[in-house]
């Protein structure tokens, strides 16, 4: 898996995306009675992107080769990178149920826990969330989601 060509994979995803947009653009009018319609720009842009994707795949296979192992993080770095995604998704799942303070602390804890002792991570996560909660909700008036206790 690690030796596979990441450029080709990226090019194929891009190609699939541009073909999809190209196909979808046919549901929009290319011309109207007044001139170019809403479908003209999408059709040309996606058409050109199809050509660019094909050239990119060709270049990725022949010129600059990026292996999957160069693109994906390895070992402990993998968790560091993945923790950002996991933390934000967890925040999105929690925040409307538990309020900002709990969701924010949980999000930070996930990213911090590998780099600090658990109690230090918890303290940093809680204090940071509290400061930002006060700034955004109280000072800037942004209606952050809160629980039954008001935090």
């Amino acid at each position, binding site marked *: 898996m690690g030796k596979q060509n990441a450029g080709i994979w990226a090019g194929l995803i891009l190609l699939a995306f541009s073909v999809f947009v190209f196909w979808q653009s046919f549901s929009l009018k290319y011309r109207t009675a007044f001139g170019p319609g809403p479908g003209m720009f999408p059709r040309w842009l996606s058409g050109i992107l199809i050509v660019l994707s094909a050239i990119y795949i060709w270049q990725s296979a022949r010129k600059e080769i990026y292996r999957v192992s160069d693109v994906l993080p390895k070992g402990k770095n993998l968790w560091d990178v993945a*923790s950002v995604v996991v933390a934000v998704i967890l925040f999105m799942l929690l925040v409307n149920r538990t309020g900002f303070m709990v969701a924010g602390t949980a999000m930070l804890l996930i990213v911090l826990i590998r780099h600090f002792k658990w109690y230090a991570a918890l303290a940093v996560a809680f204090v940071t969330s509290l400061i930002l909660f006060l700034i955004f909700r109280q000072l800037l008036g942004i209606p952050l989601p809160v629980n039954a206790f008001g935090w």
Partner: protein
Amino acid sequence: MDSFAQLIGGFETALSWWNLLYCLIGVTVGMLVGVLPGLGPATATALLIPLTFGMDPVSAIIMLAGVYYGGMYGGTITSVLINTPGEAASVITCLDGYPLAKQGRAGVALGVAAIGSFIGGTISIIGLAMIGPVLAEWALRFGPPEFFALMLFGLVMVVGLLGKSLIRGLIAAFLGLILSLVGRDPVSGTLRFTFGQPNLIEGFDIVTITMGLFGISEIMLGLENMYKTGKLPKVKGLLPRRDELKPTAKAIGRGTVLGFLSGLVPGTSSTIPALLSYSLERQLAKDKSRFGKGAIEGVAGPETANNAYCGSALIPLFTLGIPSSPTIAILLGAFIMHGLTPGPVLFRENPNFVWAIIASMFIGNLLLLILNLPLAGMWAKVATVPPRLLYPVILIISVLGAYSIGNSLWDVGVMLAFGVLGYFMKKLDIPMAPIVLTIVLSKLMETALVQSMTMFEGDLLQFFHRPISAALILLSLVVLVFSIIAEKKNKKSLLAEVEM
């Protein structure tokens, strides 16, 4: 004379204590992001935009512009003291700034950089005040074909000059153009690619996308390759030796001219004048071997150039509505969000706004000089904040910033998705600047193109019947050809290393 009177009026607005406070906040945040590796002015400007929703447009843009030019000052400090550029344009400063610090002359490097930055920044703002109104008046004659050709030229410059490969630059540009198709068609109002999802009707928000592409991806990369902060050298003695005064002054003069001219060209970045200035100083030096070992001109020239660039790069934005870098593209987004349309009519319809911003930049540059010279050591300490603490804090601020845009988790999700996209784009060396610029410009470009084609009754050759649009399209073709040749000869590597 008229401009001078309006500038005085601008100072009256900018000097109100409220606007002074916002200017100070802006330049301080700018310094902070300049100092902190991994957090650039583009991300910081995007992060601050949601906080300006309730603000008066003048105060909001004064603060956001402060982040933009303040970032250039901050980046120097870490380049000199710990050999870690805080932002892209300061990469060059490491070459001679860090050796100077190792010789115990960190204070001199920082002092010269701050003074050069102040001179370059101030002169370029004078240029903005003088050239801006004239250029805007001239640009009022532009019709849709000229604007389309101008945006095309700006885009080709970004794609052609930056990034390691033309194809990857073009892919990023077209990806940005396609992503901004989502939502309402700017001409007919038809919904496109919304798939029945109400959140997509207004399209993707530029601020959310930028926070994802620049901020979240940078957090992911930063956590993956955490930098180490070394011990800080002492900062003492801010002025160069007597024998260094003349070459330093000359380097500052040349840096100002180079930086100012580079800013006028749409699509350049602050790295380009810094690079040009460094190579010019090296060429002109009697003893070239000093460069890389602590030549003071190697710090003075590039630092002046990147700050002079900052002021003049606002000229295309203020007069033509064309952003020349991702940070300026985000500023353009902020203009629109606050109900202002950058372009030739801005000087005519909102003179108070424009002149207050210009005046605030004079004040901001002075504040930055004061913040820099005596406090350089303190700023450098900020850079020693461990990244394992810094990145999580930036993450939660980004999440809150994205949430504040529409008080919805949709924007947080979009930001995360673009963050992951940005992470892989960076890993695959696909440049980020074209995608942000095209997202901002796409709707304007489409409108100008559709209007032009309606005017020309579908005959695209009519673009060549108008001298300005013909010249700009031909120039774009020349840049594309030049870029292909440069790529074939592998001449793009230097500029390709840095793109913000």
